């Protein structure tokens, strides 16, 4: 921001930013308090706050959150290395890329969640199936980004390697990997977003167990809109945190390597 922004405008910004959300919440509360909307179905903001407080006090929320995050982490730990390795291999070898890319592209065309029924036949309905689904979801963005990163290495750098008589392993370590890093990181960034969505989806569609997604479905079946909204906000919040954290880590790592 330039120095010309005056103090009044700076103060007005957060105020106007809060205006619409505050009005919306007030109207929502008023509609229920005045009996315009059925409080039995539509939870009021006050009820949502109460549900959040109860869930925190009882500790259910923390347990479910932990279960979901663990699951997500397991899927990421499986899918990201696989994606990096495959992307690297397909990027380095033109022949491998030609051979396997068409099949991988075809697989990627099928909407992610339509794999759930198939995975449930192969791996059952429990933890292994959920983790495999999450890993599958994060594999593709990482693989594609890494492959593009490796392919996109500036030929000039590769010529340097030739001139310096570098061994292939040296070229890989000193030139290709650093040059492909930004793309691979943006793939991992996407993987964090996909992984979290896949976690919630897996908890909806596979067997019920501890987890935010399963909890959300239970609350829905009991018509507890207050609890559903708490879960929904939590899912959005965690997703935002992942995005922010990944963005910050990405910038930091790139800056440390003098790439950004």
């Amino acid at each position: 921001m330039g120095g010309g922004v005056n103090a009044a405008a700076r103060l007005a910004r957060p105020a106007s930013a809060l205006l619409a959300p505050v009005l919306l919440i007030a109207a929502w509360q008023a509609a229920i308090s005045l009996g315009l909307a059925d409080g039995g179905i539509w939870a009021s903001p006050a009820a949502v706050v109460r549900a959040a407080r109860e869930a925190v006090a009882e500790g259910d929320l923390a347990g479910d959150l932990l279960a979901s995050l663990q699951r997500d982490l397991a899927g990421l730990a499986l899918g990201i290395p696989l994606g990096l390795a495959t992307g690297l291999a397909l990027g380095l070898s033109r022949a491998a890329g030609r051979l396997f890319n068409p099949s991988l592209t075809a697989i990627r065309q099928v909407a992610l969640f339509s794999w759930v029924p198939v995975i449930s036949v192969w791996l059952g309905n429990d933890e292994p199936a959920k983790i495999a689904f999450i890993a599958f979801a994060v594999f593709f963005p990482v693989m594609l980004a890494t492959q593009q990163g490796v392919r996109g290495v500036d030929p000039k750098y590769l010529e340097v390697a030739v001139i310096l008589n570098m061994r292939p392993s040296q070229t890989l370590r000193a030139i290709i990997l650093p040059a492909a890093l930004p793309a691979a990181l943006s793939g991992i960034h996407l993987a964090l977003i996909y992984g979290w969505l896949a976690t919630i989806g897996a908890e909806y569609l596979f067997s019920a167990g501890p987890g935010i997604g399963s909890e959300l479905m239970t609350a829905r079946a009991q018509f507890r809109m207050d609890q559903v909204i708490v879960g929904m906000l939590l899912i959005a919040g965690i997703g935002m945190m992942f995005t922010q954290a990944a963005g910050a880590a990405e910038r930091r790592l790139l800056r440390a390597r003098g790439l950004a």
Partner: protein
Amino acid sequence: MTAAWPTRAGGAVLITAAVPLALLALWQAAVSAGAASPLVLPAPAEVLTALRDMLGDGTLTAGLGISLRRAATGFAVGALAGLGLGALMGLSGVADAALRPLFMGLLNVPVLAWIPLLMIPLGIGETLKYVAISIAAFSATLLHTTRALRQVPPALIEVGTIYRLTWQQRLVHILLPAAFPGVFTGLRLGLTQAWQSLVVVELVASTDGIGYLSVWARQMFRLDQMFAVMIVIGLVGFALDRVLRAAETRLARQWGGA
């Protein structure tokens, strides 16, 4: 171009087709030899037969018809709302300042998380699908329309000022052509996400449509049908994306945008 290099192009096609064909052959051989149970992995031939049967008796076309109608309606509603609000927020600083925090906050809630909430008042009826799909289309369209209009280069806007263009002239001749590529990307992503959300909502809460066909096949342990349905879902997704990409290139050329 390819005609000049017939052998080379032919070779590329062969290499491209090699792995899928080899996989298919291996898959068919494994099932034929009894190495994989058809209850776990149906042979490609069985999947093709299932596909033909489901097309023949109309289950597939009926299910696909229902799903396409849902996707089209949801997309139309969501994209129109996203374009309208995106134009408002992209063109008016006041509207942007007032509405951005609310909507950008809401956009952080994935469609997946909206579904249970929507199911309470809407049940699992048609409205649920329309609303869920339109949220998906709305998010992508709103985000990209606002951004595209905000990112019109100031130099172009100055040209409008210098030539003393009216507000409408500036909109038609400067802002819309400059923002067009971004807006269209939003529409294309919106359609892709509408299709993905359709599959999700039909898996979670539906009694018909293409996603439900897959759930039903799962319950009947008809893996051949499940794979057939997945092929159709993949083909439709691919076709939707391809058509919009082609339209994007052609329209961009016509509008003189980049």
